[in-house]
């Protein structure tokens, strides 16, 4: 597949080849790349009471001089303000902290699940796999909503715990960071399980037996063989949970409390409640910068998986 002359021959007529490249390319340039440039440009503007609520406006018909003048009004003031304001710094740090802890918790629950699935009798595996994928297809919003009724002070979890007599008073779980952790782990569990399961299922279990024969303890064999071999799956799963968790909006908004700071929610509030489009744009650019490293890691992993598949 890598030879260009083969691609040319097999790709067929020039017209068909061009359509396959040009149409999606132009679409993504216009609706993916261009919007980012606009966000960047607005992040350098200042808010005004008008529609659209930012200045300066570029008026292309006004001539070169006007354009240069508008250009000189752009300033990094919003970024300086965000850097100085403790609220935003805390929102970034707290997003990272919540995403990291949730990713670790998801791994803690997801790995044994994936491992158990990979060890299951072969005829059961397709069913188990479907059961993991099924929640992924059902609405994210609904799955988060389901937890509200469970975690409320008078909710089902508290009713149950009081009924079995573990607690005398209802626990406050909803509208705390704990509820956010539960929500993220629950929503993103399939993203962790699927890549780990894929690596474990391919693994040759006789390697573990060999390690045991050679004197490893059961834990040693697990740690030195199984965990090592599952590492690519673990890495992929962690990235797939961590990246969306950092920018998450729905979960902190519905399950978190007023003191749960997450950057996705801050952006939403800046935009919808405060109607400060330039600051919202600057928050978006900084969030993107925060995610550049994990996103590049993810893309490299994808590219490597593609190479392998070929």
């Amino acid at each position, binding site marked *: 597949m890598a030879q260009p002359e083969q691609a040319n021959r097999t790709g067929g007529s020039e017209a068909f080849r061009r359509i396959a490249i040009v149409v999606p390319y132009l679409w993504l340039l216009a609706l993916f790349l261009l919007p980012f440039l606009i966000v960047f440009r607005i992040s350098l503007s200042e808010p005004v009471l008008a529609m659209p609520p930012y200045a300066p406006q570029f008026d292309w018909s006004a001539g070169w001089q006007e354009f240069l003048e508008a250009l000189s009004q752009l300033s990094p003031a919003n970024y300086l303000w965000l850097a100085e304001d403790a609220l935003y710094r805390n929102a970034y740090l707290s997003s990272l902290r919540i995403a990291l802890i949730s990713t670790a918790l998801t791994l803690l629950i997801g790995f044994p699940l994936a491992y158990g699935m990979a060890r299951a009798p072969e005829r059961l595996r397709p069913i188990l796999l479907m059961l993991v994928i099924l929640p992924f297809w059902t609405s994210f919003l*609904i799955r988060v909503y389901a937890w509200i009724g469970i975690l409320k002070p008078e909710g089902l979890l508290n009713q149950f715990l009081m009924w079995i007599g573990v607690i005398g008073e209802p626990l406050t779980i909803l509208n705390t960071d704990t509820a956010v952790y539960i929500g993220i782990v629950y929503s993103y569990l399939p993203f962790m399980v699927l890549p780990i399961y894929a690596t474990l299922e391919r693994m040759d279990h006789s390697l573990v037996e060999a390690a045991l024969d050679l004197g490893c303890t059961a834990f040693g064999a697990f740690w030195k063989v199984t965990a090592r071999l599952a590492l690519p799956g673990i890495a992929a799963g962690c990235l797939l949970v961590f990246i969306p968790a950092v920018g998450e*909006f729905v979960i902190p908004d519905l399950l978190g409390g007023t003191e749960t700071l997450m950057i996705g929610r801050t952006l939403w509030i800046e935009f919808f409640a405060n109607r400060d489009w330039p600051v919202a744009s600057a928050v978006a650019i900084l969030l993107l910068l925060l995610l550049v490293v994990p996103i590049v890691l993810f893309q490299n992993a994808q590219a490597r998986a593609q190479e392998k598949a070929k």
Partner: protein
Amino acid sequence: MSGRWSWFNITSVVIGFAFLYIPIVLLVIYSFNESRLVTVWAGFSTKWYVEMLGNEGLMDAAWVTIRVALAAATVATVLGTLAAIALVRHTRFFGRTLFTGMVYAPLVMPEVITGLSLLLLFVSIDMDRGFWTVTLAHITFSMCFVAVVVQSRLVSFDMALEEAAQDLGCTPMQAFVKVTLPVIFPAVLAGWMLAFTLSLDDLVIASFTSGPGATTLPMKIYSQVRLGVTPEINAVSTILIGLVAIGVITATLVNKRRMVADARAAAAR
């Protein structure tokens, strides 16, 4: 991987699935609750389903959502399949790295950023927000998911088949439609279903890019949930979950039957 399925394995699978499914099961059970209090059981009733059907705002939103999802999924499938062809078959063209990046990036882009950036685009070109802007936004992010799904199937496609069709007199276009498309069709269909459910589910991007008169079902559910849990929302959720479950299980069974049929055909030969 083989070996014994130990008690530890069974326990972790059971706990994992209990965690995944108990909230959904409870949600469904309480949609049939007589009481308005979602957490107190007061007997079986289907009255919330009746109430839901009479709720005009909810029904309008459902109708908007279905129209957006149908349009977005269909266009996204065409664009995503084309993008997959470009990625797999055309290894050299101008700006391929940028193209690859633009296909993968939306998969991991936080929704708030995608939503904000598309809204600012629509504002700056002075496009009225509503049905079409939501649809355009949904096409853009879901076409990338379609591209990845179709790509994984296209990679393993034997190009010799298409070449043979061309040698036998097909034009490249005919060869693609008659030979390649039927082979990759399950992936294209899976891509369409994925795009459809992504569009059906999306709250954040729709909230940014929608305008008056184009409230989608997730937006409606979200605004009601913020006011508190109501059994009506449980009823809507149950219907959505039921439809998705039927869809996924049917697709799995059809795939299985197809594989069995293929295997039998191969054995008979």
